[in-house]
């Protein structure tokens, strides 16, 4: 009897993938079976699937691709879990890595929200009437970014903090008609090089300087980071003063948690604030997708790149949200648009919105505080060890600090890694002159026990390098 069933299954076989497929099974995510396909081909008057591609020159078709066999969902899981298992998640280590990407606690409701098909399977909210959910959440995001940065207008998101900074520079170039950019030397190096690549096309010259007061009337903008790449607090007011004195725009690359605690960019007088919203409920994910945000002062509103959502009324007088001021955008303005951005990072903006609404300004501040306390505590204990010192002992820092370690930062980090500790980013990778330095980060997810482990392991290292040093001396 089973055989009778089997035979009738063979009908389903017709369009299946050749090979060892059992009859009737379907590959991938195609709803139509052989019956539907036959009916549709007949309807459109095509003798075969091949007929549909008649306008494609014959010589281009009939590929023989070297691709692996299709996988059942269960096998796909096995395969991807195998790859995932070849990575060591931060949660399985004691991690002190930061440098622009942070392991912060992601509340359950944030994860659950971005997993909802109502949000993740929706498109850019072109049809406002059927997209109020996305639109309102973006409006809330814009409002929160304005609150956080102290500025007037924020857009619906950009790709990441680095491209956001580059877009800000392009905005300044367009706004001022100038083609030089003065960037603080302690910008995140990833951010700086993206600004350079963006600037390159339009022949914008990017100069870095330790002295941000060097701004002149040739500069479109001054770009500083809060905190700087090495975790230290920047004197934003001074940068603003210098920029404005030169008629340039003042741009601040800000960490959102810094903005929750410190005087905001708006308060300090910046014209533009950009940053990466990854710490706001978005996992590190090996560097992406993260979240670029940008906020500007009112007069720059029409120069802002990307989507903007506005609050309006529907014809029945109800509150409604809609994409607005689209005349800045590529689909209307084409080559004269303020940017080429189309697809942005809306789902990440949703994550950040839910994160901020859950934590509130108060909760975010306390996250910043606990991170600061832990980092300072760790720094204090480490710098008591022989050979360990702060690179910038005189500048206040937040939750990251540059640490000078004995025996080479790369070797130190490797030894720590043996002990299950990601001790920080060896700065020699970025700047050969800093090969004895490590950028160390604490957050609210850095367990106090991990701090103890770090100190103990560093003690062992210090002892070892003392021995090595004395042996070296003896030799």
């Amino acid at each position, binding site marked *: 009897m089973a055989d009778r069933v089997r035979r009738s299954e063979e009908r389903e076989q017709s369009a299946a993938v050749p090979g060892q497929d059992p009859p009737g099974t379907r*590959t991938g995510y195609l709803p139509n079976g052989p019956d539907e396909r036959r009916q549709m081909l007949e309807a459109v008057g095509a003798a075969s699937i091949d007929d549909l591609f008649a306008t494609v020159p014959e010589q281009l078709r009939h590929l023989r691709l070297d691709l692996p066999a299709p996988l059942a969902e269960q096998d796909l899981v096995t395969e991807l*879990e195998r790859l995932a298992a070849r990575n060591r998640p931060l949660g399985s280590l004691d991690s002190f890595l930061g440098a622009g990407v942070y392991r912060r606690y992601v509340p359950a409701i944030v994860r659950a929200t971005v997993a909802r098909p109502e949000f993740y399977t929706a498109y850019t909210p072109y049809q406002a009437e059927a997209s109020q959910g996305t639109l309102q959440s973006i409006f809330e995001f814009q409002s929160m970014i304005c609150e956080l940065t102290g500025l007037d207008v924020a857009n619906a998101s950009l790709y990441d903090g680095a491209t956001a900074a580059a877009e800000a520079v392009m905005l300044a170039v367009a706004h001022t008609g100038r083609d030089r950019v003065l960037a603080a030397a302690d910008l995140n190096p990833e951010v700086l090089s993206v600004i350079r690549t963006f600037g390159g096309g339009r022949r914008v010259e990017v100069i870095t300087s330790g002295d941000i007061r060097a701004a002149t009337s040739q500069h479109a903008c001054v770009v500083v980071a809060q905190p700087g790449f090495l975790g230290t607090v920047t004197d934003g*007011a001074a940068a603003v003063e210098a920029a404005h004195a030169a008629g340039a725009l003042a741009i601040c690359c800000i960490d959102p948690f810094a903005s929750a605690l410190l005087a905001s960019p708006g308060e300090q007088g910046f014209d533009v604030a950009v940053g990466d919203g990854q710490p706001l409920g978005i996992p590190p994910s090996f560097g992406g997708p993260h979240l670029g945000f940008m906020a500007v002062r009112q007069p720059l509103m029409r120069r802002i790149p990307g989507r903007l959502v506005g609050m309006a009324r529907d*014809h029945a007088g109800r509150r409604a949200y809609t994409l607005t001021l689209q005349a800045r955008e590529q*689909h209307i303005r084409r080559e004269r648009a303020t940017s080429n951005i189309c697809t942005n990072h809306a789902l990440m903006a949703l994550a950040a919105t839910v994160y901020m609404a859950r934590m509130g300004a108060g909760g975010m501040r306390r996250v910043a505080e606990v991170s600061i306390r832990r980092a300072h505590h760790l720094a204090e204990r480490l710098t008591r060890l022989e050979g360990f010192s702060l690179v910038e002992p005189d500048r206040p820092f937040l939750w990251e600090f540059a640490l000078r370690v004995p025996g080479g930062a790369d070797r130190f980090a490797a030894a720590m890694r043996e002990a299950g500790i990601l001790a920080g980013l060896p700065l020699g990778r970025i700047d050969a002159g800093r090969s004895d330095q490590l950028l160390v980060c604490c957050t609210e997810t850095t367990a106090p026990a991990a*701090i103890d482990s770090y100190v103990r392991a560093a003690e062992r290292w210090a002892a070892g390098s003392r021995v090595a040093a004395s042996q070296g001396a003896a030799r």
Partner: protein
Amino acid sequence: MTPTPPGWAGEEPLVFELGRDYLGGPREVASGVPEPPLGELLAGVALRSVPAAIPALPEPVLARHIGRLARRNHHLHHGIYPLGSCTMKYNPVIDEQLASLSGFADIHPDQPVDDVQGALQLMWELERILTELTGMARFTLQPAAGAHGEWTGLRMIQAYHAAGGDTRRTRVIIPDSAHGTNPASASLAGLEVVTVRSTRDGTMDVTDLRSRIDTSVAAVMLTNPNTLGVFEKDILEIAEVAHQAGSLLYYDGANLNALVGIARPADMGFDVVHLNLHKTFSTPHGGGGPGSGPVGVAAGLTDFLPVPTVERDGEHFRLDHDRPRSIGKVRAHYGNFGMLVRAYAYLRAYGSAISRVAEDAVLNARYLEWRLRDLFPTAVGPQCMHEFVVTTRGTRVPGLRALDVGKRLLDHGVYAPTVYFPTTVPEALMFEPTETESKRSLDQLADILAGIVAEAERDLSLLQSSPHDTPIERVDEVEAARHPLLRWLPEA
């Protein structure tokens, strides 16, 4: 219509109206370390004078807010989303779950390479699959979206010409039917845009192209099938024309869903290609993003790829930052890795059967086009690929507008097709059903459209005032743009 009840579809307050607690928040972790006053740790640092007005909502309040917003969205699990050019195909649930595995989501870009071999291997293998599908020599997986890819590709083309000592090429040829990001990307790269006409059949006018091409042209940018859903039949000739003039040929891969596994851009003569993983390879659109726009290049351009690239040494994978001719970095880190995981999973699910995607995508479009044949004139004849453009001009109903048809569709739980694009077609309705709609769903859509046209014949005003059954009616867009209200204000 009865007034919308607050329950099923009424207004939802803003987060800011649901709470005013700017100081509290959820219970926090104890620092576990000594707690000197913050002022001691941050001596001399200017702190905020007032907290940001971002309220902390209790979880039950926030969850309900989200639940009610979610219900106000059309989405793929609710109905068809036939947005032309957007490839709104079904996003496999398993891909979401896989991307959130801690082995993928909880890894840091600065971890030692030995800690992230699985991630690098996935990227390396994904790059191989993309090269196989396109015929390109190599890919960068870094660009975050199509537009970002376009600009990255153009920057490489600039670098290529510059490396050959050819610095006069400052222009890009783009057809009039192109997507807006093409000219915008060219402009962002500092290139000037030259527009080429389309012929009556919707394809590029090769004569016009010949007349405009010269040694100032860095690249010819094409989408194929183009935004009218028509295969550029003269593609081989176009490639020859471009190459003879010393220009490169750029492929906007937004429409690869029509051809994936069937024909390859490299074989058509393209030198640089961007793909939209969020279209062809089903990573979700997320209400606007994130996407992923890898760029592939022919062998002569691999030196210019953004740093870093992913390299394999035997069984070991590494990042190569040391590429002196690279255009540099185009974003932080290595790409929208979470999207790469999804696309890789999708590609492994189909594997060697990937051409079935294009087959069914084209069949579905062709079938829907056939079903609509008596309702709307097509823009360029009935031989569409994965999408097609019709117009409301010349239908049985004078005054019928694309916008009104689109809005009325919303009342039926169907998203509007792309309207007024491409701009070369008046009153355009651009349908792309994708391969993941069933025949049943296409028949339903066709029936609904027939009903709408019949209704319009009787009473056009019903369409013009539509939608009626959505959470809101039409928005006063003019007022919204005239007095833009782009944020909530504490005192408003």
